């Protein structure tokens, strides 16, 4: 966990509803995804209903936290004022061992070191007292 800055000015997710539940686990240092209680399929982003079997029942199941790079883009010119101080940076699609994919970033990794299938592990970064973002770092395979 890194020290969180006094004022975090970047866009924040909603901490209500399903998003709030997802980030609530993140604040406790746990990456959890929804898993359908009826058909056992994992899913992300969070949704009310299992699109495979129609069940409203799910549990928040803990992820291995491990995944690999599925795709990325290196943002050289920020297209949002809040990210102008971060360029270059790279939003990354991470494919988790559980099969779901999520958008995140890789810490301590210059964008030109990114490769498809690069192994990653989640690392939470607290941005304020009630929010930690699930970011990733490189790991040896």
């Amino acid at each position: 966990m890194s020290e969180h800055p006094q004022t975090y000015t970047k866009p924040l997710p909603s901490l209500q509803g399903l998003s709030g539940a997802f980030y609530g686990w993140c604040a406790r240092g746990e990456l959890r995804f929804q898993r359908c209680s009826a058909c056992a399929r994992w899913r992300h982003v969070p949704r009310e209903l299992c699109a495979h079997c129609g069940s409203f029942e799910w549990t928040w199941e803990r992820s291995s936290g491990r995944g690999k790079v599925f795709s990325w883009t290196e943002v050289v010119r920020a297209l949002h004022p809040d990210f102008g101080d971060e360029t270059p940076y790279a939003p990354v699609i991470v494919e988790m061992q559980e099969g779901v994919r999520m958008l995140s970033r890789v810490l301590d990794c210059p964008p030109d070191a990114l490769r498809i299938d690069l192994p990653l592990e989640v690392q939470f970064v607290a941005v304020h007292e009630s929010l930690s973002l699930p970011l990733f770092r490189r790991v040896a395979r």
Partner: protein
Amino acid sequence: MSHPLRDRACIVGIGETPVCRKPGSGRSETALQLEAALLAIEDAGLKPSQIDGIMPFPNLGKAEVFASNLGCDNLRFAALLTLGGAAPVAALRAAAMAVATVVAEHVLVPAGWNGFSGARVRETAASDPDSIPGAAIARDFYLPFGLTAPPQWYALMARRHMHEYGTTERQLGAVALAMRRHAQLNPAALMHGKALTMEQYLASPMISAPYRLFDCSLESDGAAAFVVTSAERARDLRRAPVHVMGAAVGQPYPADEICGRPDFHRIGLTSAAPEAFGMAGVTPADADFAQIYDCFTFEVIQQLEEAGFCRRGEGGAFVESGAIELGGRLPVNTSGGLLSHAHLLGVGHVVEAVRQLRGEAGERQVADAEIGVVTGWGDFGDGSIAVLRR
């Protein structure tokens, strides 16, 4: 058996305003669109009061406002399709349905904006997060990580395609160069008189890799419009009608989220194109040209693949072969498109298709063009497509 909507509707009027960047149009987006609408209505030989259906572009105006300005005192059909840049061609299909079922007689489809001098697309995520497709998903799971704007969404798709199929930066560049060459034959194009070489393309500043500046469509001011009526009614009007042989709309799955798609390369056209060609009773090989929504270069490659002009994974080689240039197998975006003419939100692509099928495209005319295809692309990969004939 023939599809019940095949050849039942026609485009009978087109209009396009001058386009510009600096210093900007100096006019409201409503005024720009009304000018294009009047040009299209006049082109059709109609009076504005005869327009009884209007399909505006999402977030760029309300049917009531168009109707009130134009004097359309018998507006019977108005609908808004929230498909981003796929909306105008989707509106063409909806308009065809409306006129074929006599719900309306003359439907106007306008679009236009101050894309240069007004609010830029790239700024809207900051000022209006609800404007992003999949608004809550983007707010909660994209924006916090810095994924904020269209070239970034689509760059994720392009990068994966490059990995799986070996698509190259020079192949993306081949799209930019082809559109730019076509713009040299279109005096109205913003990039007329500004040739582009591969060296210049590769040297242009990176925006969101693999997208460079010249992979991105123009930010420009201008408007365009078209008018649709039934095939029966079209016979009485002044211009040679352009028939809607087939048209369809589709979405990727899931449409509101990019990262987790089971088939990452499936887009709206993947299902819409076979439907439209089937309805038209022709194949992609029958098309004499295509106007492909070119918001970014890779989207042209991907749409060519998913529409069936080549197989998935072969789009890079297809564009690099010169097939998409005038004189090639399938000339694409003969006006210069969004990349080198102007960003007219997809209505410009319909207008250019009609010009080609009327034989009025001047120096850039595709010889003996009989059948043309026009596509739209919007949001997270929504797609629309129409197969047109003269």
